[in-house]
């Protein structure tokens, strides 16, 4: 809708504009941010990582990493997987998430304990990529569609990534309107050219994660549209057991992933 809006502004007016201005903003006290993902692929490879950072003043360059937290994931059978610090706020472990098992994340930071619980959501594999050279809003861009088939008769939610040097596209889908059909993740970035490499990832996620990412993407300008909500800080599924008011941001997600690498023709 932003594009629509700008289009309307454009006709006959030629004088509307966007410009960068100085705004004095308040700085809220820092809050813990958790990016915890347990990923597993169909062939059994897995990747378990938890990234810990904090919020920072809006005009700062970058966010601070947290290097001194204790991070573990425990499954419902009591097995504990400790995470070790790697770099840039990332903590990793060796963990292959299984279906129908509850995983509990626990983070101890500054004497406060943060927890979240999740289970594995499966995903249908990415099947093929269709390329069109006359796509996009101007009819001149290369657009890619990565197809997958949604299982019929169940509610499914997806998180989709299209990653390349030209730019990343993130999106979330819910199968309310395409249940059981073959549908696509849409990838469109400026200046995509032949020989560019694009990696598509699709994750099976919960409905709560779908809602979480949907709002998040709107606030970052990645989503948007005529459905923009009143901005408010979106909360994930992690709570602070010690001090509930000092809640963290971010999400603990356990997903099956399907990856497809594609070279632009």
């Amino acid at each position, binding site marked *: 809708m932003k594009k629509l809006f700008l289009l309307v502004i454009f006709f006959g007016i030629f004088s509307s504009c966007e410009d960068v201005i100085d705004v004095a903003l308040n700085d809220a006290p820092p809050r813990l941010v958790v990016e915890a993902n347990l990923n597993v692929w169909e062939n059994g490879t897995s990747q378990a990582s938890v990234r810990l950072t904090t919020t920072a003043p809006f005009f700062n360059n970058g966010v601070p990493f947290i290097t001194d937290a204790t991070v573990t994931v425990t499954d419902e059978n009591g097995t504990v997987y400790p995470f070790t610090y790697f770099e840039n706020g990332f903590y990793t472990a060796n963990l292959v998430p299984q279906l129908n098992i509850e995983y509990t994340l626990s983070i101890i930071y500054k004497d406060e304990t943060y927890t979240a619980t999740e289970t594995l959501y499966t995903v249908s594999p990415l099947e093929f990529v269709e390329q069109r050279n006359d796509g996009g809003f101007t009819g001149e861009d290369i657009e890619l569609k990565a197809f997958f088939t949604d299982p019929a008769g169940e509610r499914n939610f997806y998180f989709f990534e299209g990653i390349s040097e030209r730019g990343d596209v993130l999106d979330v889908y819910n199968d309310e309107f395409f249940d059981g059909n073959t549908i696509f993740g849409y990838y469109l970035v400026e200046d995509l050219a032949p020989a560019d490499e694009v990696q598509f990832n699709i994750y099976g996620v919960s409905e709560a994660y779908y809602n979480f990412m949907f709002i998040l993407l709107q606030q970052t300008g990645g989503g948007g549209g005529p*459905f923009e909500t009143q901005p408010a800080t979106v909360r994930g599924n992690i709570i602070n057991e010690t001090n509930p008011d000092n809640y963290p941001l971010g999400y603990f997600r356990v997903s099956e992933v399907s990856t497809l690498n594609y070279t632009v023709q």
Partner: protein
Amino acid sequence: MKKILTFLVFFGSFTAFSQEKFTLSGTISEAETGETLIGVNVIIPSLQTGTVTNQYGYYSITLPKGEYEIVYSSIGFAAQKVKVSLSENVKKDLALTTDTESLDEVIIEANNERLNIRSSQMSANTLSTTTIKKIPVVLGEVDVIKAITLLPGVTSAGEGASGFNIRGGAADQNLILLDEATLYNSSHLFGFFSVFNPDAIKDLTLYKGGIPARYGGRISSVLDIYQKDGNKREYHASGGIGLVASRLLLEGPIKRDEASFLIGGRSSYAHLFLPLFDNDNIAYFYDLNAKLSYNLNDNNRLYLSGYFGRDVFEISDSFANSFGNTTLNLRWNHLFSDKLFSNLSLIYSDYYYGLELKFVEFNFDSGIRNFNLKYDFSHYISNDVDLRYGINSIYYKFNPGDVTPTTEDSGINPFKLTDKYAWENAAYVDAEIELSDKISVQAGLRLSTFNRLGQDELFLYENDNPIIYNPSLDIYQKAKPIDTVSFGRSETIKSFANLEPRFAISYLLNEDSSIKASYNRMTQYIHLISNTTSPTPFDIYAPSGKYIEPQLADQVALGYFRNFENYSLEVETFYKKVKNRLDYVDDADLIANDAVEQILLNGEARAYGLEMLFRKNTGKFQGWIAYTLSKSEQRTPGRTPVESGINNGEWYNSPWDKTHDISITGQYELTNKWSFGANFIFQTGIPTTYPEGQYEYNGVIVPVYGARNSSRLSSYNRLDLSATWTPKPDSNKRWKGEWVFSIYNAYNRKNAASISFRENTDINQNEAVRLSIFGIIPSVTYNFKF
């Protein structure tokens, strides 16, 4: 004593006391065209009394037997003095001629204003099209909505915003009537143009408060617009050609003095230039007004009017969008007697919104449709008492959305959001009484009811709670329905009934000034569910029902009105409280939502302020200064002490709250060839929510936001200038033309429509980016009449 007895016995007929009384009545029209005239003053100076013509040009006043001089006057027309011998009921129709200057003007003005000072109507502004046409506006197009935003108490949420806000009320709380038919969207192209073709309009009145009992269904205001009937004497055309849009109106008699037609259209075409810029997108609007009027005989008149408007957008081949209003109404004026005037209206009104996403291969259609019957009576009982009563019945069908795939192998399944049905009814009675020389009262009562009718698939929830509070995450979540029920269409799911008292009183301090006070209670049963700060055409109307309560508003206003020789001053203060104002929880998801009750919380709203209007109405230089100081806020507490509600249950600014709003507008007629106009507007910036920090998630920078609407954009101000050149003002030729040169935002201020916070990926730094929509815009329009 006589007057008090008259007041007590105003139901039905009653016999005169010691004096015989007769009725003087008739229709006032414009001599050149045969158009009936609204609001013409009919004054009997010797009795210090008078009346005005109604929306159909009809007046009626009952006086004691005698000889009188009656003065008929209206701004812009030559007044007429007529001697009438009232020894029996007299029918006096009159034709007034337009008048550009008159020696009697000042005296007549004084009489006009005296009537306004005495009337108990307050918080209302009537604008004639002559006044509206002189106000410079964007792109040289005369715009009714932009003109009313120059009045005190009226603002818009910003450039590019559709709709307007009255006395701190939301944009869906305004009842917009075009020839008695309800319109759902008042603007084209995101607020750039209004849906009203100024050539087709006869008269408009905006009620911000003191709303008479004959209006209902929206709680903040009524914008009552009447179209012309069409020239009953000769064929004429008028129109304008501009850089962005053009318009043409044709009118004329079908049978001279008896029947006439009017048909007008407008369209924009700037999108045709886009291919020059290698852009094959489309954005335009068009609308069509049509009307047929027929005077069957002295006591019966028929009108058939219609309006059709659409906005169309297409982005290359992938996305097409169209939306707009359609109305069709048939009205029958009937005089039961010279004291009893009636109007029966049968109205069909439709608002459509459609989207076609070609690259995903589906269509989305939604809309609201209603059938409306109104029967209004004006009963002119005596010279002191006018009674109005009537009924209003509206049947609604809401289509929240219909998704259909456009090709066989589209990945989208067909899907229909459940249609909703409702039936709104009202009956009212309203009396305008002159209690004494100094006191005038309007007392009315409206009884409104709303039945939410049966539909397929209504969700049921545990404990009737569609929304659940999750205390550990401190967020509101949608409740999962426990059951779905279907009802037959004639069954009622839930019904509401409300009494709406309306009261206004004026007290004449002296010949030139008065104080007025009013109270009204208003009810609104349909609500615009819009999560954006200003409405978009995609917003849906939700009817009250099992989970949504009707909004109830109480407004009190107090005002002081004063006339000077060439000026008038109105000062009003108001306080408005609204119950059951809905708001969305944080992070609400509105797309194709079949269950809006799962994201809405019930709260309250209030607004209060001081308005001042200082006008110069006569002479070569005319205009006004309007100043409004006001506050508009909302509060949505949790439903229990544990819940946080929105913004922790504290008051927060409404998205359209503007502390200061100053509008100055002036027109100066230098010679009969040149006249100039200017507007200056200054408003406090609208509330917004700023970030207080940032974080990174999955490689994206996300802002951390502060309290809802706790910050403000910088102030909004601009200057508009216009010059109108009439090359041959004295020409006797049939073709008359004038050139209008205008500059919108003459000093090119970049007023912020919004500020977005995002990452500049080129320098990896966050930025605040201001979007300003209108810079300096010069334009030229050629208006013609023949």
